[in-house]
């Protein structure tokens, strides 16, 4: 059996968890493994029953009043109990903030290895092989895990969803044990700055700016452009972040975040090696830069050599037309 951890945030199932479940189902089919999904919380009633259509034959609801707020300690204990019972061969997570926090903790409890932030999972000689970026994508490591269960976190936006796998399955509610004093730290509050801004790791489209943006006020241009495109968000190069033009949570690159959107629009970004590492796995790259020699053009599918302050307004106009057609 393969197990997929389904993350919920404020009652909603994360799409990236369904991607992880979908991949578990695909590899499970190859290896003849059933796939189960697990949710953890104080009450998991908010569950969207569609989870079954992404390939889970059983959904486990692991509940305890002490699991109301997320804590790695509590969640790892809950999943450990399920893993001890089911003896899964592999456990899949989305490589989200929660997945990356939780999976290594569970792995240490189980005494097993983790493949972090995978971008490919394959079956070879009847075994799972995980491929993942290292050095923020300057190289790719393929590994096998010698211990069982093998844990893997899968990068959001990389693995396609499968749907229509069947509308129903077995739902098993379980009260898990959480010992007194086990949880020594947990989430007290979730703070949102403004609205529901998408994270660069989750966006389908990233509108990114670099030193060529010339100042913080000009990031408004990128925000306006991003607002026109569904599931998009604003990103930035290290030099824009280090100049204080935009918050570091938007930074793409080796000391920021590694991203794989469908479309990466790079405005005024020259393409330093550490930036290219973080965004080269984008499916489509567009570069707008004054300097025709900028390294970013070597990885861009479409390039415009020119002044971004002239290109962006014209692009917005053209996009408005195209989108309204």
């Amino acid at each position: 059996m393969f197990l997929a951890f389904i993350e919920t945030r404020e009652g909603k199932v994360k799409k990236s968890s369904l991607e992880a479940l979908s991949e578990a189902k695909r590899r499970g089919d190859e290896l003849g493994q059933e796939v189960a999904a697990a949710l953890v919380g104080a009450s998991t009633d908010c569950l969207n029953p569609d989870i079954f259509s992404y390939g889970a034959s059983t959904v486990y609801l692991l509940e305890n009043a002490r699991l109301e707020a997320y804590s790695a300690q509590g969640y790892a204990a809950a999943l450990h109990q399920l893993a001890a019972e089911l003896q899964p061969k592999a456990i899949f997570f989305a490589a989200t903030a929660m997945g990356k926090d939780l999976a290594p903790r569970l792995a240490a409890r189980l005494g097993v290895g983790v493949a972090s932030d995978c971008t490919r999972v394959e079956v070879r000689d009847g075994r799972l092989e995980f491929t993942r970026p290292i050095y923020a994508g300057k190289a790719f490591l393929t590994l096998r895990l010698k211990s069982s269960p093998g844990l893997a976190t899968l990068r959001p936006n990389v693995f396609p969803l499968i749907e229509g796998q069947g509308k129903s399955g077995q739902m098993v509610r379980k009260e898990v044990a959480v010992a007194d004093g086990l949880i020594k730290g947990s989430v007290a509050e979730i703070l949102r700055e403004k609205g529901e801004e998408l994270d660069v790791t989750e966006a389908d489209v990233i509108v990114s700016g670099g030193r060529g943006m010339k100042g913080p006020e000009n990031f408004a241009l990128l925000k306006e452009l991003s607002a026109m495109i569904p599931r998009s968000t604003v990103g930035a190069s290290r030099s824009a972040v280090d100049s204080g033009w935009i918050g570091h949570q938007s930074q793409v690159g080796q000391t920021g975040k590694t991203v794989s959107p469908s479309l990466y629009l790079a405005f005024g970004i020259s393409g330093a090696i550490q930036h290219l590492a973080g965004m080269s796995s984008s499916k489509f790259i567009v570069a707008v830069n004054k300097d025709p020699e900028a390294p970013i053009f070597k990885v861009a599918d479409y390039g415009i050599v020119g002044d971004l302050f002239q290109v962006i307004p014209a692009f917005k106009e053209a996009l408005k037309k195209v989108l309204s057609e």
Partner: protein
Amino acid sequence: MNILVFVKRVPDTESKIRIDRETRAIMEDGLNFIVSPNDEYAVEEALRLKEAKGGQVTVISVGTEESLIILKKCLAMGADEAVLIKDDLKEAYDGLRISKILARAVEKKYPGFDLLLFGKQSVGADNAQVPSAVAELLGLPQANVVTKLEVEGNQGTAYREIEGAMEKVVFSLPAVVSAQKGLNEPRYETLKGIMAAKKKVIPILSFEELGLSQEDTAARVEVIGIEMPPARQAGRIIPGTPEEAARELARLLHSEAKVI
């Protein structure tokens, strides 16, 4: 406060990575090595906590003797002590292996700590496993990818980055915290610091001294291969005035690439 900080030696982020297919490892010659940037935020935070509350900052690294140089740098920044746990195995990409070594070192040599600080991940293996795994092995609470940390008595509050929001995590000490860019601005070493660091001896601990067996330090990860990313083909430059090019770009993204 008694603070332990864990640092790792990694290639400079501006480095071009080359691969040795034979050894399934990266080629180290010609690379410049630094303290992993996320770890520097951890060192800085430890020094600030010490300055505010008093105490001791000890920096620990696992690696070959080549890591002594990054430990010297941490001493020059102001850490009180540094120690190297000698590990001749180069990168094994196994977070739990390093975590077991560190957890054992903490239990054996530094039992009276208040805080264990890490970078959120090494810039290299990019595993982001060690902080959580060490926390589990030592039975401690954890807060990872932290951009703000407050400590009051034996209570900590950390703000950590999640997708599109911040999570406020409240925990009791001792605890594990991993640092993210934004937590602070690491200081440069001063000349005085560099001179003082020169005089300090960095003890080197062996696995035997920590009572670690071969089984304890065996890797659970089997490296099948390391490859360069598929090379991207440079695409086309769209000609014309900015207006013409922008219009054509919108058309191409919509009708040809179908990504908007």
